[in-house]
């Protein structure tokens, strides 16, 4: 069931089109992530859904009710949509108890019971209730912000980069906690982030945004392994993009003959491999397997992995690509290697532009 529908949304700030025709359907109880580089318009999109800004064109329909179009809009305080902002946005002049109870309209005892329940839900100690926001760590502040938004039992929760201000370790833990709480409550969620890993880990549906438009919308697996173009591929993770001659589901590429995921296409095209499909072994090592031959042109040790640049064939000026490989083999620049490929390559139908790694 479609719960939230955005139709041809446009928003202009001066001469800049922050949103340039956005269409999106979100089903009830699902988690959607909107991912894109900073300045792509994703926060603007969230502000329109929250009701903080009005669209210039297009419509927002939520649970069968039109929230906004170019002429009229339902004000933010009547939408029943919760939001957790990047830095939590707690009211600095109120205690944690007052922050969480801010939007609650109930008598004191019922309110306190609900606040205690919410604190428990987001995994915070009730002893913190009397503190002020600046006495809490960043992760705790985010949990309070979530509890405050949950207090009103919103049907839709908007998360505006809520984890980006946190340390790496805390980030994963907070994300897990938030996901669990939202799933348990069955709340439809829209997450905005510039972190592709976060988007892929969090969502059922990922929308990749670029310059005010959605480049691709699909399941995390789909957008990761079958991106529409090289730019989308590169944004979602490392990608090796190769030129190839394609026929009958097979591509003749600098890495040899590879199976592709499009059997109908015939002609010149670009194909993409994810680094986890590629293995690199020193040439001549037993069990090294079949594959194209290459040379380590450059290698930088980075702990568990090493960043290498491999040139194919004997020509140092020839085709080359970069890759992170496990550091277990002590390769050095100049070593000859065999490059193995597992699985099928993804074929870009439209001629995408060359990425830096190709």
């Amino acid at each position, binding site marked *: 069931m479609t719960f939230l529908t955005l139709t041809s949304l446009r928003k202009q700030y001066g001469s800049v089109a922050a949103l340039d025709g956005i269409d999106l359907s979100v089903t009830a109880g699902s988690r959607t992530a909107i991912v894109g580089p900073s300045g792509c318009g994703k926060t603007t999109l969230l502000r329109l859904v*929250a*009701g*903080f800004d009005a669209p210039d064109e297009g419509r927002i329909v939520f649970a069968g009710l039109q929230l906004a179009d170019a002429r009229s809009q339902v004000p933010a305080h009547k939408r029943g949509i919760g*939001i957790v902002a*990047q830095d939590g946005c707690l009211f600095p002049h*109120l205690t944690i108890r007052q922050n969480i109870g801010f939007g609650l309209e109930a008598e004191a005892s019922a309110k306190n019971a609900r606040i205690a329940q919410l604190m428990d839900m987001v995994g915070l100690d009730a002893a913190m209730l009397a503190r002020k926001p600046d006495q809490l760590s960043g992760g705790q502040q985010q949990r309070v912000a979530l509890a405050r938004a949950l207090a009103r039992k919103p049907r839709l929760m908007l998360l505006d980069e809520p984890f980006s201000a946190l340390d790496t370790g805390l980030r994963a833990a907070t994300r897990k906690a938030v996901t669990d709480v939202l799933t348990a409550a069955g709340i439809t969620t829209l997450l905005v982030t510039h972190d592709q890993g976060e988007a892929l880990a969090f969502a059922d549906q990922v929308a990749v945004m670029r310059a005010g438009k959605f480049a691709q919308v699909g399941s995390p697996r789909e957008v990761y392994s079958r991106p529409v173009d090289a730019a989308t591929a590169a944004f979602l993770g490392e990608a090796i993009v190769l030129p190839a001659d394609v026929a009958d589901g097979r591509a003749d590429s600098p890495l040899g003959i590879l199976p592709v995921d499009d059997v109908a296409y015939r002609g010149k095209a670009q194909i993409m491999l994810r680094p986890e499909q590629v293995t690199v072994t020193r040439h001549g090592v037993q069990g090294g397997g079949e594959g194209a031959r290459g040379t380590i042109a450059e290698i930088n040790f980075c702990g568990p992995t090493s960043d290498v640049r491999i040139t194919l064939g004997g020509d140092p000026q020839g085709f080359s690509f970069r890759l992170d490989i496990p550091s277990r083999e002590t390769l050095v620049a100049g070593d000859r290697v065999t490059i193995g490929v597992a699985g099928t390559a993804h074929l870009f139908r439209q001629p995408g532009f060359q990425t830096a790694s190709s």
Partner: protein
Amino acid sequence: MTSTTETRITIAPRPRLPAASSWTLTIAVVVALLALLPLGFVLWAAAVTGWDMALQLIFRSRVGDLLANTILLVVLTIPICAVLGVALAWLTERSDLPGARFWSWLCVTPLAVPAFVHSYAWIGLWPGFNGLPAGVAISVVAYFPFLYLPLSAAFRLLDPALEDQAASLGLAPFAVFRRVVLPQLRLALCGGALLIGLHLLAEYGLFAMIRFDTFTTAILDQFQSTYNGVAAYMLALVLVLCCFVLLGLEAGLRGRSRYARLGSGVARRPKIARLGKWKYVALLLPAVTAAFALGIPVLTLGRWLIAGGAEVWRIDEVGVALGQTLVICLIGGLATTAAAVPIAWLSVRRPTPASRFLEGCYYLASSMPGVVVALALVTITVRAMLPLYQSVATIVLAYVVMFLPRALVSLRASIAQVPVEIEQAAASLGRSPGNALLATTIRLAAPGAAAGVALSSLGIMNELTATQMLAPNGTRTLAMAFWALTGEIDYAGAAPYAVLMVAFSLPLTFLLHHQSKKIAGR
């Protein structure tokens, strides 16, 4: 032992306070002691008066009347100023009021008109207007900018994300204003209200002209007519206690909570409210305020200037008064700023509990009304150091006590902008600590020092109470001449002096307005 010169340098224990710091601290302590002299004097006077005598002088109907007047004045004026200040600040900062920037300037400009000139302007129009209603009305127009300035800066600094957040939690716009915006204005409200309260307690000319008795006017009457020392001291004691009550109230209401936004990065620009059809109704508020706060002084001064013609601009009198005023302002401003240098440097470079305590002493001393400062210095010099009575040194000391915080604020801000590394670099290039300070920080902080001199000089220019009591014989500043002429009902003759004071004060208001914009990064 193989201790060479080199190793001795590296292993020598770091002194807790370098020589430069200890000297600076000594000077700062001496200045603080001098600044606390008036307060100490009043307390000493109370102590030596004797319990019975003191009670007799304090618990009498005259003091009761003055207290009632003072309380009514404060209780009526401050809330009106607060409501007016919030409304004007919201209109000029957060709404699409036509000409918001222009109105914002007009809301600050009344500060350029000395309070007693406001009073003069009002009774020029309505000679029968006096007592409490006049006191409240004139105080509101003279002092509301003290609330408008911090409130408008606070409105600019509010993080609009908090208001969005409150809306998403189901609050209608007015509830958002009441529960999120207003509480965050508390610091600005408290600070501005305190400033207005202290001015109400200290002001003489405004209230004397409309025959409204406050402690300050009563002390001056006593001083000028009968020179009844003990009675004046006891009135001063009650006045000082009133100041303490205000300071305590403000400290209690302000609280200790942190109000800065918690997030990182830069806040989004505040949303501008659309007034729509209310636009023209809203325009009435700044327009009417400006009419009373600026229109009336302009009208009255214009009328008297036209009536007086060219004759009132007697170069021998007006020119001499202007010259004397400028000299005394310059000396006072330089002395005040110089006195502020040690504590400004300490509070930025060596902040310790001691430096914070000293700073508190300066603020406390400057919150004493001019009449108390002057009364104390008159009595001390007459009794103990007669050659200093009515000397330039004594009046300059009074100005230092009263205006030091003005210089301190500018000076400290500009010293804080000079990275300490520059001072250290100079030291590493072989300059002695004092020399390094002089060559780097002091040089780079010069604009702040200039602003400090300007702010304190302009305060001195419009000061009437202490100046009247302490000015050396033969001195006639603009304020004194203005006051003497209005006392003789020569309103036309007084007009040029008022015009000159306003003209010199205008840059001050521009400076204040500019600073408040700069705080908000605009």
